[in-house]
């Protein structure tokens, strides 16, 4: 069993990992960086190690040699990468192993296979998982791109093999767009991912985004933990997730889960992983990619399965067998996660930076808040804008929606703008409540109405401003000084004419 762990991450996920590791008797280490030396996550670990002085060119949590050295120098058993940063970096996993540090995640080979979208599709093909436009490998020339696109039928999408996170993708609606987009995509892939390989697949318009959580041990046991519905997204950034998905029938769930499990088996997968699918309006599903890490939205799965995913990750990394079998997995009720980001939704989801002057979190049965901030935390442009996640567990979907809304009503953040009014707007929306939405929801259904305002809220705001002004100006002068009070209105009218 792992005895100590270095958490190569920050914010809420560092706290979440530390919480479970401590409970399992593992000594936890957090990394202090110069950018946020007083961060909350540092107070939630057993030991704090300082990141060494560097030239600052490589951000701390992307610095493979220094992170591995920190673990080795402090005789720490294992490394947890969290999500983002180096969590899907095969070189990091390999460097850990080479230095005798257990990497909490799959093997470098699996990370590399799944990180290469072309290899991942080939594995999915062998596992019999449906996909868009089959696998044809990379397209080395513009002519090859046009030939493949014509064979598939339009629209098509050109993607970077090493891309991800919504970057390095171009959609072509007709033949004469293919050559130009192939060139642009290849150039972008070269500069952004240091790999010019691109491939083509059929482009699905306005799909639903549904992912399956799987977990596998080193002994070939693979179990799925149901799906997560992640269609509420903007520019490929998820903003709200739920489990299960209102779009799936029991029959579809079984089919998709079997595909995810087969894919994991074909890949020789171990540890926690997520198979992402696109679902079209007719209920056909297609493999998109597999993520080889813990996801931001993992708590919704924990809520409905009652399992602790970080605990499973740590057990598997320690070489233990999966403590559960598929027949033990029961999905209970409904869970929703709202991401509370420091963003100005009214200003186009731009980052909102500043000091958290005050924070009030809701507290109730069946709600969980994973947060990495407290009063006094400064929101800087250096890091991700997510400051907290609100996760609720209801007996059914309506119950979960209502509990989310009630909780958001009691969630106050002063000092920065947040996505709370946006989350309320989604939860109040009739289309969302019916469960009939896809990735175009924000753009097509919400449009410009991105935030929820209570009836007459603008009048209340105006009254609040007026009342504050009235207080502010209460004790200035004695009435004689204020022109409105002291001056003859006729004189005032006359003066206005001279303006």
């Amino acid at each position, binding site marked *: 069993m792992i005895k100590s762990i270095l958490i190569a991450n920050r914010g809420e996920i560092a706290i979440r990992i530390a919480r479970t590791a401590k409970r399992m008797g593992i000594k936890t280490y957090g990394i202090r960086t110069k950018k946020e030396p007083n961060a909350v996550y540092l107070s939630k670990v057993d030991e704090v190690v300082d990141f060494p002085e560097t030239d600052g060119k490589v951000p701390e949590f992307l610095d493979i040699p220094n992170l591995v050295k920190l673990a080795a120098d402090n005789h720490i058993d294992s490394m947890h990468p969290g999500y983002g940063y180096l969590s899907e970096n095969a070189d990091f996993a390999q460097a850990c192993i080479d230095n005798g540090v257990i990497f909490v995640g799959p093997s470098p080979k699996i990370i590399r296979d799944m990180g290469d979208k072309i290899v991942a599709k080939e594995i999915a093909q062998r596992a019999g998982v449906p996909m868009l436009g089959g696998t044809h490998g990379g397209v080395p020339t513009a002519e090859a791109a046009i030939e493949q696109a014509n064979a598939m039928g339009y629209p098509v999408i050109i993607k970077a093999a090493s891309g991800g996170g919504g970057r390095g993708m171009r959609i072509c609606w007709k033949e004469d767009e293919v050559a130009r987009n192939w060139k642009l995509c290849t150039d972008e892939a070269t500069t952004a991912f240091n790999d010019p390989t691109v491939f083509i697949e059929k482009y699905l318009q306005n799909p639903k985004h549904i992912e399956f959580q799987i977990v596998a041990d080193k002994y070939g046991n693979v179990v799925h933990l149901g799906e997560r519905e992640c269609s509420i997204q903007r520019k490929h950034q998820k903003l709200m997730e739920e489990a299960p998905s209102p779009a799936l029938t029991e029959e579809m769930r079984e089919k998709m889960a079997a595909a995810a499990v087969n894919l994991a088996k074909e890949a020789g997968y171990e540890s926690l992983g997520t198979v992402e699918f696109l679902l079209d309006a007719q209920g056909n599903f297609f493999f998109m990619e597999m993520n080889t890490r813990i996801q931001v939205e993992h708590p919704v799965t924990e809520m409905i399965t009652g399992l602790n995913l970080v605990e499973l990750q740590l057990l598997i990394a320690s070489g233990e067998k999966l403590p559960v079998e598929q027949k033990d997995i029961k999905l209970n009720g409904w869970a929703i996660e709202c991401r509370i980001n420091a963003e100005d939704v009214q200003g186009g989801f731009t980052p909102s930076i500043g000091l958290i002057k005050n924070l009030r979190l809701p507290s109730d049965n069946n709600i969980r808040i994973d947060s990495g901030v407290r009063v006094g935390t400064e929101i800087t442009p250096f890091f*991700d804008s997510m400051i907290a996640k609100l996760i609720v567990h209801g007996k059914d979907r309506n119950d979960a929606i209502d509990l989310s809304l009630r909780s958001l009503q009691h969630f106050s953040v002063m*000092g920065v*703008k947040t996505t709370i*009014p946006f989350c309320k707007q989604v939860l109040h929306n009739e289309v969302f409540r019916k469960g009939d939405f896809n990735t175009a929801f924000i753009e097509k259904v919400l449009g410009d109405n991105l935030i929820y305002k209570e009836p007459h809220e603008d009048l209340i705001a105006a*009254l*609040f401003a007026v009342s504050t002004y009235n*207080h502010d100006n209460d004790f200035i002068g004695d009435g004689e000084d204020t022109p409105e009070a002291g001056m003859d209105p006729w004189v005032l009218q006359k003066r206005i004419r001279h303006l």
Partner: protein
Amino acid sequence: MQSNIQNRTLIAVGPNEETYEFQVDNKYQFSTKGQKLKVEMIEEADGILLFACEGVRYPVEIVSVRQNNYEVMVNGVSYNFTVETPFSLKRRQILAANKPVSDTEEVRTPMPGKIVSVAVKVGQEVKQGDPILVLEAMKMQNTLTAPINGIVTVVKAKEATNVGKDELLVEIKRQ
């Protein structure tokens, strides 16, 4: 000496010149359209500010006060108002009508960040809404767009440089 605040009128003017008129009955009561509204400010023990109107409480925040301009938040939604008296409002409207329209518009950084790419050159013609540059902050890329139709006269923004808040990036001459 108590100021003469009773029975005066205050008007909140929103960003689109929409107006909300209130009569000040006293510090804790205002009237609008014949309806009396009792208000109260409550500061909770944890510092959260509540504004109560007719007994209904709203979490609020005073974001900034500049002269008579108030940026406030109600339920996490931000609002901007200028508080005017009937006289100052009239002045403001006349001044606004007489104000010469500036022929250049400045594009400034809305937040500190790093410039990823610049899409315009000096002398280039741009239309309102055209992308001007991409600014990266908090790992998000934000496209800044042209506020007006015109010709680019100044480009201060350089790719791959860090910029602070409110720095001049591009100037556009109106056409």
